[in-house]
């Protein structure tokens, strides 16, 4: 959920020791009006005299989540200390900082402080401890951007999406260089690296000095805007995954999304296809012609009149996948309808051949809370991700996916929205889901109170998810065939500063 940009206030304590070393004699200037006074120590940076504008926003989210179970199976574990229901009370703080120097140079920093589970909060816990769930900082984006005439360069840790957001929708380190075309069109070339730790560890010279085992992304995409109503995003992407030694995986993708909007409606259609190769990732066989036995090919040696079969040779796996998502929304008086369809290719049931399941980012546009990503706060347990096979960067959707979602929102009052969301999801290839095709049907009701132009929101959601066997096969921990309904509720108190 996007934040609103509000009043500009700088909170020095949040941003680290450098700023805390500000000289006691210097006083903070009024930020945002180009004052020559600086809060930074002299000589720290090469400060220009260009005007500076600082935008700072805080999103504070207090969440209460409750479900009657963590999976679709009421079976009791041998040791049921925690019982079946799951839930938490937590606070998340999401600060966004933007600094613009003149019109050309922009800095952006986004982080997330939390998840601050109330049950785990320990004020004595030091920040950054791996096992600490009391308070932690998660980097989101840190980048700088230079815009000169029609060119711009953006470098840093940032969120990157492909034209559809289905394939690449990740936070990665990247450099992006773009050229603005007439209108709001643009074309951008990008190069980035997925965060990764190989099994070689962190030693300099092994990981840092060797890109062979890293996961790299390059892309060329762009947006063409046709008037006010139509836009086309399309791009080509290439991922080079060298994280497995001698098993290089290369995936190319072509993505395209058509966006249209009118006064009270908008619609989009995105399609992405993938093609690539994973070296030595498929079942192989004897190297050379023929198989083992006396009639093996000439690559082998001879022993006492018998021909030795040649050694085993792993095969490459082809990678082919596709996905499509169509979304639309329309507002009719106080009623808003939002809906979408999504589909992803499935793999066959055999691991040792070409990979046909779509590699995706785990994020769809659906409004559901459980079947797709929770838009309020990504808890990471959405069913569509669980049905994928995660390899560290992408979810491989071996079951495939078909979904349809619909949300109906009514604004009876300026500060009140009530709504209902429903989604149905299914597997494309039931053989990858223990013969089940149906994954689930989710329905929820929501009430959203928003005050102060949305700066304060209270969201109440309650619903249920009727699972199908396709989801149970991936989600359940004890009985893979159980399909017990999940009931859930969520309350969020959101404040934006």
């Amino acid at each position: 959920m996007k934040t609103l940009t509000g009043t500009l206030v700088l909170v020095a304590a949040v941003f680290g020791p450098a700023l805390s070393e500000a000289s006691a004699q210097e006083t903070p200037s009024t930020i945002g009006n180009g004052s020559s006074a600086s809060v930074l120590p002299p000589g720290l940076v090469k400060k220009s005299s260009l005007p500076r504008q600082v935008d700072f926003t805080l999103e504070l989210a207090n969440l209460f989540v409750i479900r009657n179970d963590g999976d679709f199976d009421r079976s009791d574990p041998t040791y049921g200390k925690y019982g079946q229901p799951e839930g938490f009370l937590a606070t998340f703080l999401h600060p966004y900082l933007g600094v613009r120097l003149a019109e050309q140079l922009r800095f952006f920093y986004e982080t997330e402080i939390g998840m601050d589970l109330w049950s785990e909060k320990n004020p004595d816990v030091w920040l950054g401890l791996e096992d600490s769930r009391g308070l932690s900082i998660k980097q989101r984006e840190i980048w700088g951007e230079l815009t000169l005439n029609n060119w711009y360069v953006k470098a840093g840790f940032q969120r990157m999406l492909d034209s559809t957001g289905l394939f690449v929708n990740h936070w990665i380190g990247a450099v992006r260089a773009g050229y603005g075309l007439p209108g709001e069109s643009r074309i951008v070339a990008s190069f980035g690296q997925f965060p990764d730790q190989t099994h070689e560890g962190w030693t300099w010279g092994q990981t840092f000095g060797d890109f062979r085992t890293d996961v790299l992304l390059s892309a060329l995409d762009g947006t063409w805007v046709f008037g006010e109503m139509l836009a086309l995003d399309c791009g080509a992407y290439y991922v080079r995954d060298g994280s497995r030694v001698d098993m290089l995986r290369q995936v190319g993708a072509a993505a395209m999304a058509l966006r249209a909007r009118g006064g009270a409606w908008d619609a989009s259609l995105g399609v992405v296809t993938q093609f690539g190769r994973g070296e030595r990732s498929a079942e192989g066989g004897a190297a050379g012609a023929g198989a083992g036995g006396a009639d093996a090919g000439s690559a082998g040696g001879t022993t006492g009149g018998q021909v030795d079969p040649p050694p085993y040779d792993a095969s490459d796996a082809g990678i082919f996948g596709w996905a499509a998502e169509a979304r639309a929304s329309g507002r009719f008086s106080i009623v808003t309808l939002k809906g979408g369809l999504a589909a992803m290719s499935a793999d066959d049931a055999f691991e040792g051949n070409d990979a046909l399941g779509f590699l995706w980012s785990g994020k769809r546009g659906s409004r559901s809370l459980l079947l797709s990503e929770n838009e309020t706060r990504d808890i990471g347990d959405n069913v569509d991700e669980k049905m994928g096979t995660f390899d560290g960067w992408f979810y491989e959707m071996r079951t495939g996916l078909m979904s349809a979602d619909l949300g109906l929102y009514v604004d009876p009052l300026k500060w009140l929205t009530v709504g209902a969301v429903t989604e149905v999801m299914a597997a494309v290839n039931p053989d990858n889901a223990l013969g089940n095709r149906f994954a689930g049907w989710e329905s929820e009701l929501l009430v959203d109170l928003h005050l102060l132009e949305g700066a304060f929101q209270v969201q109440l959601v309650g619903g249920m998810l009727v699972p199908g066997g396709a989801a149970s096969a991936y989600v359940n921990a004890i009985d893979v065939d159980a399909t017990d309904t999940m009931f859930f509720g969520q309350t969020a108190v959101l404040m934006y500063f």
Partner: protein
Amino acid sequence: MNRCVLLRMAASLFMRIRAVLVAALLPVLLCGCVDSVTPGGIDPPAFDTKLSALKIDREYFRDEYGRYVLLNGVNVGGTNKLPVTPAPDEDPRKEPISFVGRPFPLDEADLWFDRIAKYGFNSIRLVIPWEAVEHGGRGIYDKEYLFYIEAIVAKAQEHDIYVLMNFHENLFSRFLYTRFNRNPELGEEGSIENMLGALLPDSKTLKYGGVITGDGAPRWAVEACLPHKNIDAPNWGSSHFLGNLGILSNLIAVVNAVDKLTGLTGGEEDEGGDGSGETGPSLEDFLQDLLKKMMKSDPPMLPYEITETCDVFPFTSWWDNTLFSYDINRCYGAFFAGDAVMPSLNKFESGGKTWEMDIKEYLQGGYAGAWAQVAKRAGKYPNVIGYDLINEPPGGFLMLAILTLYFQADFDLGVIEDFLVSLAGTETGQIVYQLLQVLNVLPLMPSKADMPQYMARYGTEFKAWLAEDPDVCADEADDAAKTECQQVAFVKQRIRKSYGADDIDLFGVLDLNLSFVVNLVELYDVVSQAIRGEDPDAVIWLEPGSGALDALVGGTFGDVSLWKPESIDEMVYTPHWYPDIYPFLGFNAGPREFTVEEWADVEFLTDLAGPLPAVLETFGEVPVVYGEFGTYFNYNGIENSVASNYAVSAEILNNYYEAFETLNLGRMLWCFSKDNTHENGDLWNYEDFSIIGPDHEPRAELAWMRPYGRALSGRPVATYFNSDYHHYDPKKGEPDPWREFYLSFESKETDAPTEVFVPDCQYPDGFYVWLSDGWATFDSVNRILYYHPTRDDPGHVHEVTLRPPMEGAQRTGWAYFFRDGQVVVGDRH
């Protein structure tokens, strides 16, 4: 902007990007909406599953992909010891002899090998008696059988099964046997009278119904080492107990002697002697009547000479005959060291030819020649993993030594008693001495009272003997003394002759007993040279022997160390081991009675690991594969065993396999016999070891049909499987690791996948797989999990864990769940 303009813009846009659209959608059109490719959803693996030849690399077997192969095999089979013709219930001497069809007819081979493979075995030890190849005479080979055996090996290869060729033998030969009564009419089961009754035929039909026999050597070999015997005699196979005159007093004396020795007085109040407790005919009367019938039968079943039968005892624990049978000792002695033990035997007739050489060369040459014929055919097949030169070579020649000493000491029993005491200590020596007497092993001179009867029977022979040497006893004082002396001398020489005693060199026998291993290694040298002449790459599997001293003082079979003959290049050490599961010493002894609890917590690890340090020291790093191990399936009686679902047998088998898994040793289970019956077991000596029963279904399979890593991409580290018979140390709140399988191996040395056999019986509801890294596929038809590890950094240990779905057990973090040919892929690492 109005709608028309919008549409025109859209059309214009489409025209510009249609090429891009087609390119983008082409994969969509090609891939489509993928559904299952084959019924059940699983494509057959692309990996070439064809069996590849094995090579030895230190203590490992490695296939041609460089994988470490674990041999999980089964002996095929128990019934191979007997020919197809004559049938088991026919006279064993009947011609023609053919073993074609053992273990199964060729047209059934696919069925049985399919079963064997489905049970998870990747290898068999193919039991081949020497007789099967060379029964027609020395150098005369049964070509039909050799063709059959080659076809069996080829069939095994089609089913990806390795074959170990084993020349099998027990008690030297099938022609050394004795009949017994399986339903004695005397005494309660287990009593001395009952055992006595086992020696006697049915009183009404005069039939025996049972036989204890050996297997292995052909008839011509037995004739060579027992030239003083007549295998064609009508009573061949009758108990040597019964043949002598004075039989009745012998039998009564035996009962009394055993009673005195053991205190067992089964039926002591049963004056009728038939176990009924009712007063009826006395034992003496019963025997009297039966013996009369036997004498009057046509042809007469009594009397007969010791030369008209052999001295095999109908022990249910048949192997005890290696201790107590002089005839069996003679034959082994001739085979291993005939040049020293029987130096005078140097001319033989066989197959219409005359052979002039010492008996050792005669027998071993024939043996080696037969092996060469087998190797000539088997050596062509890459699935032949070696040649197991002889089964359980017994190195105890106790009876040969005792009787030879007895004869040379002029029938002085005191010498024998002193010998046994000096050998085994006072207590054990005395027990053995008394046992020998009870069993009538030492041929006694007729008593003074019986001498007239004896001389009346053999009077003509006496005269003829005396005519050849009239000066015998010339120094006696008077005619009466001289006659008595001559008669005694005649009887002694007659007895000696009937035992072939003059053939035996005492020092040769003693040397054989003390240094049997030298002779065993010599045999291995001879045979391996013959084999390698036909199959230069042959791997020789050596079994240890047991020494006489070991057998006497309770040592473990196989304690004697070997060394490797120079002619052997690559070898495998292949011991056998069984715990104390055998029937007690006796005739018609029933199976042991055990409870599950007696075997539930017994560890076999110590015994199975026992030889390993000595093997390493003696041979260096060589593979060790247990060539035989197993259990009876009829404990507490077959009905009780079946009713309990073979619970005791399962516990014992589980103990074995847990130890093998800990030690990571190859093994060959005894046995797989399709002809098993409840009544006769595996047909040979009524042993009931077969893992399939009369209905051809597996028995106690949850104990032995286990997941295992049969080919590993890296050096094995550890493995285990918790079967239903594993005993857990329960932990509160944690589900037992029931049917959990674990396998680990070091950094991958090949790209070929690791193969894990996953039996359906252990995971009927599917199974979860945890992997340390990599990915896997599962062939649900052949039940093989193909694991492709991806990490190859040094020191990394790859791990595979399998667990079934289980009530109360939360399964998380898994990589795969397989069930009914379908797969759910979790997270890979």
